[in-house]
């Protein structure tokens, strides 16, 4: 096996056993990036050269200096953090996001910053102002989004692991499209300090990894209360790895009927149901969950709440202090307008307009307030179901990866999030794991949802399923 094929955990063990050196790992990955990234286009920038001074110090940490890729909307001190937007093309944050600080403190090197949909708005990474990332399984196919660069980098083995962010599915959907593991933690479980805000009440940072154990390992490091994020919660130290067990006897697994009744790819439906069957065969109590009807409105509520918050969060990019400034000499208002006109792409503009509209005087009650009420109903709905179930299983996506350029209609693209959005609306955790491949040879993702702060539960189920499904045993060849 080549070095780049090892999981994070395996690399750590091999360093401990002195089978390989950190230098070999770094060189191996730089080599892979040089070889593949011209085609994949997962990275916006490679930062590891600038990290080399810190190697001896980081090697002492839990992560022993292993390089990790970071989505380009997570602030890295002194490294460009562009959000794949022209408006922040040359922006250098003067501080590290809390997750980056924690990674560094635990011995990670920052490998580079990964491509994404501009400001995390999108499901294909095509909304990047710089380039479209390719799905490593089939070039010309979308890696999903918005954390498409992180998912593609991990899948193409250009990085051992990565961080993404998930507002409506932006970790899980690309993880599903790229055949890797993606975890969206409970809202408040991981500090958002330093994550460039899209929709503050929904955004969460999470790991994108080769396997479930690596996700648990990274969660051990990045989760926890942060005094700099008032919405982060203190649940004490949790060792997620300790929950990774294959035994699922008595695990109460729900299959939400309303999700499976939606119109979506039959191959996926079959794949997910057969996975559920495997759990049942292993002793889990699997049954259908009915009457989760509120979830139907999740997408509508999402496309009100997220743009509303985004319209406010993105208002600061006005050209006054940092980032792009329109050079046409004019009055301040024209400068604002020109800067934003030139700096934002069409999807970002669309959402800013949507958000501005739903918050404007006279419309607030009809849209934003109503969406917030739906949010509460959906949360209550999940709380009710999780009294009887440990986890819920659904597909991560209604389709497998689509072709780049294929999704022309924004509404159709928004539909890619139907299974993932309710999770963000409810604030619960969910993980996507690879569960097989469709006839085109593209990966299928299985989503496991858990109750608030039920990370241990979903990691447990995901780990057991990963062992049962053995997806990696008979996988098709990647195109890179």
């Amino acid at each position, binding site marked *: 096996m080549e070095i780049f094929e090892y999981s994070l955990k395996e690399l750590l063990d091999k360093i401990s056993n002195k089978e390989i050196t950190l230098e070999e790992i770094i060189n191996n990955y730089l080599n892979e990036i040089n070889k593949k990234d011209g085609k994949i286009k997962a990275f916006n920038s490679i930062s590891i050269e600038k990290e080399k001074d810190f190697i001896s110090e980081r090697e002492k940490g839990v992560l022993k200096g292993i390089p990790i890729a970071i989505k380009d909307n997570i602030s890295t001190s002194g490294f460009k953090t562009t959000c794949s937007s022209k408006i922040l093309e040359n922006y250098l*944050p003067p501080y590290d*996001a809390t997750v980056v600080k924690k990674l560094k403190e635990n011995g990670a090197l920052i490998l580079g910053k990964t491509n994404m949909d501009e400001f995390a708005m999108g499901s294909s990474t095509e909304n990047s102002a710089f380039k479209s990332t390719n799905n490593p399984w089939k070039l010309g196919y979308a890696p999903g989004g918005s954390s498409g660069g992180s998912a593609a980098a991990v899948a193409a083995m250009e990085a051992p692991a990565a961080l993404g962010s998930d507002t409506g599915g932006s970790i899980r959907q690309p993880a599903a499209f790229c055949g890797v593991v993606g975890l969206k933690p409970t809202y408040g479980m991981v500090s958002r*300090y*330093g994550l460039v805000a899209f929709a503050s009440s929904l955004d969460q940072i999470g790991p994108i990894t080769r396997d479930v154990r690596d996700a648990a390992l990274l969660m051990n490091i990045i989760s926890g209360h942060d005094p700099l994020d008032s919405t982060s919660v203190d649940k004490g130290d949790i060792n997620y790895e300790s929950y990774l067990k294959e035994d699922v006897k008595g695990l109460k697994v729900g299959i939400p009927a309303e999700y499976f009744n939606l119109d979506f790819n039959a191959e996926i439906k079959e794949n997910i149901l057969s996975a559920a069957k495997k759990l049942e065969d292993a002793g889990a109590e699997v049954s259908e969950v009915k009457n989760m009807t509120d979830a139907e409105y999740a997408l509508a509520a999402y496309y009100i709440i997220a743009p509303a918050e985004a319209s406010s969060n993105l208002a600061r990019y006005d050209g006054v*202090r940092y980032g792009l400034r329109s050079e046409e000499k004019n009055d301040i208002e024209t400068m604002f307008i020109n800067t934003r006109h030139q700096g934002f792409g069409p999807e970002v503009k669309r959402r800013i307009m949507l958000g501005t509209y739903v918050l404007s005087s006279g419309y*607030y009650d009809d849209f934003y307030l109503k969406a917030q009420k739906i949010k509460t109903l959906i949360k209550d709905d999940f709380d009710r179901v999780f009294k009887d179930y440990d986890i819920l299983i659904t597909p991560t996506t209604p389709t497998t990866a689509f072709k780049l350029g294929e999704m022309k209609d924004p509404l159709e693209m928004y539909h890619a999030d139907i299974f993932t959005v309710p999770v963000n609306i409810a604030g619960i955790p969910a993980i996507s794991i690879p569960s097989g491949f469709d006839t085109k040879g593209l990966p299928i993702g299985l989503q496991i949802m858990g109750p608030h702060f039920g990370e241990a539960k979903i990691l447990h189920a995901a780990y057991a399923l990963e062992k049962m499904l053995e997806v990696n045993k008979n996988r098709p060849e990647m195109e890179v």
Partner: protein
Amino acid sequence: MTEKYEVVIGLEVHVQLKTKSKIFCGCSTEFGAEPNTHVCPVCLGLPGTLPVLNKKAVDYAIMAGLALNCKINSYNKFDRKNYFYPDLPKAYQISQYDLPVGEDGFIEIDLEDGEKKIGITRIHLEEDAGKLIHEGNIDRSTGSLVDYNRTGVPLAEIVSEPDMRSPEEAYSYLNQLKKIMEYIEVSDCNMEEGSLRCDANVSIRPMGEEKLGVKTELKNMNSFKAVEKGLVYEIERQKKLLDEGEKVIQETRTWDEELNKTVSMRSKEEAHDYRYFPEPDLVPLEIDKKWENKIKDTLPELPRDRKLRFINEYKIPEYDAGILTDSSELANFFEDTVQEYNDPKNISNWIMGEFLRLINEENMLIKDSKISGKLLGSMLKLTNEGVISSKIAKTVFKEMFNTGKDPKTIVEEKGLKQISDEGKLDEIVEKIISDNPEAVEDIKNGKNKAIGFLVGQVMKETRGKANPQMVNELINEKV
């Protein structure tokens, strides 16, 4: 002539809360630092940063709310007020929209014809914006610089009911509000440094009319006097419009100090839609009874209560009590002195006279003078005991004011002890009598004024140290 119109004024006052650090980050709030030195990623609103609420700012807002007789809301939240301006780094201000810290309060103000209650609609917390510095006049400026030191300094916005009926009432309200804020030590209320700012809503309506007239909002009044002048101007402008059969337009107007008039800034149509929504980066703030009571326990006596107590307890005139309670420092000075030497009216005279005269002459702050109640008390004791004359006392007072030295030490060092030694005085009186035969003649002829002249001569001879009562007696005896 009876007034044709009734004036309706409501004020929105922003006071800077004097916390050491800003409301959502750890940066210093100190005034006057080099531009952009008290800033950090959070108050600069850099991408990815998040606010963390400063509990001390909440303490101060609760205290201000209680001092304004407000009901303190147990469930508080913060909201975003969205608008674009270069001094607002996030392009929204974190404020409180529908659930402020306090509501439904009032202030009592004293007017010539008695006291009046002015309602307080609400008091809420918010963050301050930065400051624009224009190169040259704003109309012709070639560029502007932004200083973000002030960004994120905590503000309490205090909104009054439209209860004021004249610019004088507005002036009196502002004074009372400022006095309260200073008493409870939550704000310096210094208009020059911008720690107190005031906008006014003003309208007029025909006498007896219930319905409010169309209001204009006045901004940019940088002193209490400017508020009064701006209001006077604006009321006259509105009256003239109505008299001429025209209408007042709802708009925001700015007070131009140089032109001495109000100028239209933006119309109702151009008014911002602030698109308020709950701040998702902060969790709702619960102020329970325990917290409220803890603050209540630290609330000092407020200006009007103190004034009334001074009148009752120290039997000093209302006028004196008003001046002495104008600031807590002055009132404390008075009470400290009374503790030392119980002669309230005499002390009041000294403070209102000599003390405030020196403060004004030297153009200094009360807290910067070196004199204390203890010192003034012991000086008054010396006067009472006849150690120094009341004339000499003024010299001693000034010395204490400047140096903070003990009056006994001053008297010793400067040899200011009153001459009460009869033998010594007798000698001097004899000399003065023989030197001024005409005066003696005048006295004999019943011109009593001349006694004063002779006493004056003795005082001159002794450089004010002679005991005036004894001199008087001696002269009467001898002539």
